[in-house]
């Protein structure tokens, strides 16, 4: 993995790039994508990142990959000693937790589909709360009648839950194999009082002036 270095000068330049990469990643609280990093340390950024990752793997701070970006994070196994109580106490409602899971596993998913999966209408304060946490955002409109808005998860969602990509969602392959990631509405049209079709059709684009 580590490129053969023959020349002492080149070795020094390489160490310089490694140090710069380390400093860039350390300075930022948010993940940085490879493109941005390549702009600063050159095209061999992939190799340098792997080298850094390996160096930090056994340490108290690790280099992790999340949603296409890289960031330093404290090691997972130190969690019990670093847990911040005040964060833990901010508990989310069951509705919010389930809704987030449905968006994560079924995305892009419309509100109507979320409601049909949960069997109840989505209360106000659920989607906006998840969005305020930076976990979800509106995706493209679905090209079906009424053009309902879809919801998707963000890169910050991956970062927050320590996931490299959506493929790493717990049990995602099992659920897909079992056919449970099908968001089609089933015979029972439950909880879809405000189904997307009707809603999106009214007041489209919200450009009406009252």
């Amino acid at each position, binding site marked *: 993995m580590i490129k053969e270095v023959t020349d002492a000068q080149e070795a020094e330049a390489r160490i310089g790039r490694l140090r710069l990469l380390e400093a*860039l990643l*350390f*300075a*930022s*609280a*948010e993940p*940085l*994508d490879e493109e*941005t990093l390549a702009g600063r340390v050159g095209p061999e950024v992939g190799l340098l990142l792997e080298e850094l990752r390996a160096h930090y793997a056994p340490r108290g701070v690790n280099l992790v990959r999340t949603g296409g970006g890289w*960031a*330093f*994070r*404290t*090691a*997972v196994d130190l*969690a019990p000693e*670093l*847990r*911040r109580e005040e*964060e*833990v106490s901010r508990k*989310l409602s*069951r*509705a919010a*937790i*389930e809704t*987030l*899971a*449905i968006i*994560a596993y079924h995305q892009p998913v419309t509100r109507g589909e979320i409601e049909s*999966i*949960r*069997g*109840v*209408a989505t209360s106000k304060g659920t989607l*906006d709360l998840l*969005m305020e946490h*930076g976990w979800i*955002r*509106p995706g493209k409109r679905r090209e079906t009648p009424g053009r309902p808005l879809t919801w998707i998860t963000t890169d910050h969602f991956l*970062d*927050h*839950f*320590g*996931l490299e990509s959506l493929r790493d*969602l*717990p*049990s*995602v392959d099992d*659920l897909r194999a*079992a056919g*449970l990631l099908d968001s089609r509405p*089933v*015979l*029972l*049209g*439950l*909880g879809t*009082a405000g189904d997307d079709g009707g809603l999106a059709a009214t007041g489209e684009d919200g450009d009406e002036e*009252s």
Partner: protein
Amino acid sequence: MAELLAELTADTAADPAVSPSEQLLLVLDGFEGPLDMLLALGRDQKVDLTRISILELADQYLAFVAEARKVRLELAADYLVMAAWLAYLKSRLLLPEPEGEEPSGEDMAAALAFQLQRLEAMKGVAAKLFARPRLGVDVHPRGAPEDLDLRRKSVYEVTLFDLLRAYGQQRARKEAGVLHIAPVRLYSMEEAVQRLTALLGHMPDWATLASFLPGGEGGGLLTRSALAAHFAATLELAKAGRVELRQEGAFAPLYVRGRQAGDTPADPSDS
């Protein structure tokens, strides 16, 4: 059902001061809608959800709704729709399958089982997701980031959430500026039409008008206005050809049934 009730109201059941309706309310509070309740009932069967007895489940659910109605508990329409659907499903499962293009009882049972499994799966992964080490709770970013501003294309920090919230608040202010006259607490016919339409869509069989009324402690004027509004609404819907009505005689219970598209008009002797 009894098991579930006992389990969920263990704290209050012993307290004679808690009325049955309060107990039921407590049970209801524990659920995120009828599907969630069915799932809890299903788990009580202590078998794999794929081998669950849908008939047994329907019986347990209907027993719960009957109990709730006995203590005149206001059940959300969702719960009544589910009860109606399960009663229908039960009849389809017990009676010989009629000829026709409607989905068979088996199909309906399978669809319900699928919904329960899917919801169960989502609850499972939600728990797994939140059991993961979380950023800012278990795992931490650099506490003192040095603002290098590598990626920011704009010096202003505004997110889509900020933008949407600003617009929402602006609209809300504007809407709040309109004077709203407090409506009298009466049931309107429009509302009854809406409610009946929602309920009937899922109710392919005859049911008494009384069973559609919102129960509850509103009492007096509100209850009477609900009856009047629903009665007027059935007439309106019948006129529009969306429901059929049946009454055995004067002052006998009035039966309502949703009219499916393509149905032949009801037998005149029924009306």
